[in-house]
């Protein structure tokens, strides 16, 4: 699994596929203040991204992949 959920945080690693978006959406429904950790994420399917955008998620850790981080900056706020 490319997304691991902790108490109040969704931690991404590697590439998150489209299938994971459903779970993410569900989780965000239950944790409206949920934070996002993209540190180890190299790519995420846009289904995940738009779910996070809709939820107005805050990114706590930017991706260490500079390219991805720059893209995400245009879509999500980072603390």
């Amino acid at each position, binding site marked *: 699994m490319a997304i691991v959920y902790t108490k109040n945080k969704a931690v991404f690693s590697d590439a998150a596929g489209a299938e994971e978006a459903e779970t993410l959406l569900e989780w965000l429904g239950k944790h*409206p203040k949920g934070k996002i950790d993209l540190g180890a994420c190299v790519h995420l*399917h*846009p289904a*995940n991204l738009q779910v996070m955008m809709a*939820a107005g998620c805050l990114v706590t850790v930017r991706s260490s992949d500079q390219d991805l981080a720059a893209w995400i900056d*245009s879509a999500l706020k980072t603390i």
Partner: protein
Amino acid sequence: MNPLLEQFLSETRESLQGIGEKLMQLENEPESAELMTELFRFVHTLKGNSGLFDFPELTRVLHAGEDLMDAVRDGKAAYCLPMADLLLDAMDYVGMLCDEIENDGVYAAAHAGDSVRLAETLRRMIGAPADAPGAAGAVSPSAADPGPSAEVRSLLSGIPERIRMDAYRAQTSGGLHCLVYSPVQDCFFQGDDPFFQARRTPGIVWGGIAAREAWPELAEMDAYNCVLDFHVLSEAPAEELKEYYRYVFEQLQMTTISPRCLILPQGDPNGGPVYEDFVGDALGLLRGGDIDALRRAARSMLELSSRELWFSSALRWLLLATEVEPENGVVLEAIITSLRTLAAPEWHVLAAAAGPQSPAATGVCAAKECAVQEGAVQESAAKESAAKESAVGEAGLLREETGAAIRAIVDVQREILSLPDEVAWIAGRVKAAAASLEGCLRSSGSLDALPGLRLAAESSVALLSAAPLLAWVEEYAEEMAAAPPSSPNAAPNAASNAAPNAASEAAPNATPATCQAEAPAAREPSAEAKPSPAAAAAPQPESEVKFGRRVEDVYAAAKSIKVDQVKIDRLMNLIGEMVVAKNALPYLAGRAESVFGVPEFSREIKAQYAVINRIAEEMQDSIMQVRMMPVSFVFQRFPRLVRDTSNKLGKEVNLVLEGEETEADKNIIESLGDPLVHIVRNSLDHGIESPEARIAAGKPAAGTLVIRASQEAGRVVIEIRDDGKGIDPAVIKRKAYEKGLIDEDRLERITDPEAVNLVFASGFSTAEAVSDLSGRGVGMDVVKTAIEKVNGTVHLESEKGKGTRIRISLPLSMAVTNVMIVESNRQIFGVPMDAVVETVRVPRAAIKTIKKSMATVLRGRIVPLKALNTLLGLAAQQRANEEDELAVLVVNVGDQQLGILVDDFHETVDIILKPMTGVLAGLAAYAGSALLGDGSVLMVLNVKEVL
């Protein structure tokens, strides 16, 4: 031969067979869309596969065939008989090339002409001009330039100033491209990952994501309804972007912008009157041509202003512009005057006035290009580079650009050549690269280097390694790019022409070299299959293009079982050994009881034996099944054979095939092929009459030929029946007598049914004149011999004037033979059960000696007797039992029954019969040998030969 080519040839054979079949079927139901679809699929697949190899002749013909089928399928051309003939010819041609490829690794270069003629003829059938070239590039810069759309402008303003400045500073010659990629809502369900796609955009300078609509409540959100837009700024050429986004091109809005469009000052618009002064001063300096002073003024102004101001941003752009294009007064002036209005300059309005400072920025500032250019996207590397060159040429670029383009092409080729060599298509790759490089040489005018390039390419092909060509590239790359183009207009033509020419030139010349070593060994002396070079090269009228080959001449054996036969044979041998090993268990059980006296243990062994026995039997059965194949394998050639033959003879024949699914062992099926062809030819040639003769005889004009297969009592029965003129027994008798096949005595006694079977006697042929078709100097005796070789029988029935029926009966499998074990002179021998009629014990007194030969009377019939010992040259007398009875094994030999005297009968066993090998193979008295369970060897008699 490499495995891919091997696979291709084998599949091609199957497809050709399928195509032939479908064409035959189509003659009966020309309206069948289903048949047409299947036919199309065969041709389509073949053509697709042929593209994997460098066989341009093959691909050309198949391509034309595919187009024709496609036209028929779409109703653009009507299916007709001449079309079928032509397609069959085309497929024969393909088959012939495949044969040559299989035998020699390559086909004769002389075939190229035929392929062109065939393809042309095929295309003429479509009634459309051959090869309409695709509409050339639909690049159409819009005449009235509306400037970047509001969307693009907002996109640009979303890009951080730093990134825009970098991109502007780079002054990419092809302009920059603004992409707005709006994936369709259900794109995820097409497997798209638009984000990934956008991230990988070639030449990406910047990218951003935006939502198309306001976000719904999370609870109502559909995660898989894509509402994201992706914005990309790229400095890659439009062509490359188009290719990259070709799957989603309609979802993409691409705008070409001049780097100047990036000059969009941003920030807090608050300002003061001091700016007005600055604008005045700056304009003065600019008009005075003092750029340095302008720069100094701007810099000090910038130091005084807050970074966040719109004004500061504009100043930064002004400074950058003085640095990047200091001569362009229009641009500088526009930036300066914008400080007054605090609105970004309208670059598209200024574009025309700004004049061309760099060739690429000319004219087009915001030409929207919406048409997809398919051509450029799909070509192979060679064509792609050629296309690139044409594009370059059309744009009328100057020499430096051509040099750059050549350098780019050469780099691509170098990259291609540096890829690993160990692929099947390395030869094709080398040739494609060589063709592209040749194009570069031509357009740069360095024709002197051509021979060197060709030499390098040839040695690359010969070695199947890209290294020699790569070495050449490393040496000449710089030289090529530096050389001035011969003339800008000639360049694209030379390049695009050179590529295909070079590839086809290289093919026939280069390939033989690679194959020479193995060619002589592989070549088969099949002169008939190949037209003589002279005949092939001689100009022939198109309609007469024939390929010197008849369908029935080539018998593609072993193509229908996909497993290597050696492997199955090995399985067969192993199971044979297993059966033998298994049969040792009962002996062991016997010993356990008789020698060691443990009957319980003996019983256990027997129980275990029963289990192993069952498994072994099932296993044997399964292996047999693997070897089974349907008779359709043999039958499938007949529609074509009958069609061609009857056309040639001017006869009308309906062929009916029945029971094609009947299965038998592969060896049996294969042995059936030649005899059947012979019988069918005979039937067409001598059996079925001409339409006129038939009508005169009160029969329908069209004759009927039925070939029927069925399974009867563990044997395959093939029946070939025609309603032709039949065989006149009187004629046969007379001929047989004339040829000395029967004596006067026999001539009188022989019945009509017996007489007609004399056609199978060796040396018998009824044909008055040797016809072109079946007269090959062999008669029906060959048929009989071939069938008997696999333990089959053949029987003929005929009624004069009504027709002929030939019945062939074959065993289902040759692998397991059921034999009876008999004993004679304390040795055991096997006798195949096929031959055994019965076993009887005859009192010595009942055996009479008539003229030195023994005989007895069984159920009122006289049965001649022979002693096995005598037959085998053993001195011993046959032994009788206690009641003084002799064991007689009654066997069938031909139509006669005969008794063989033996000492005793034993059980019957299934054995795996191994033919005699080496010096023993000359012993005709034995059919072969087999191992028995106790390890002893059983010699199996060939009853017919022994007697």
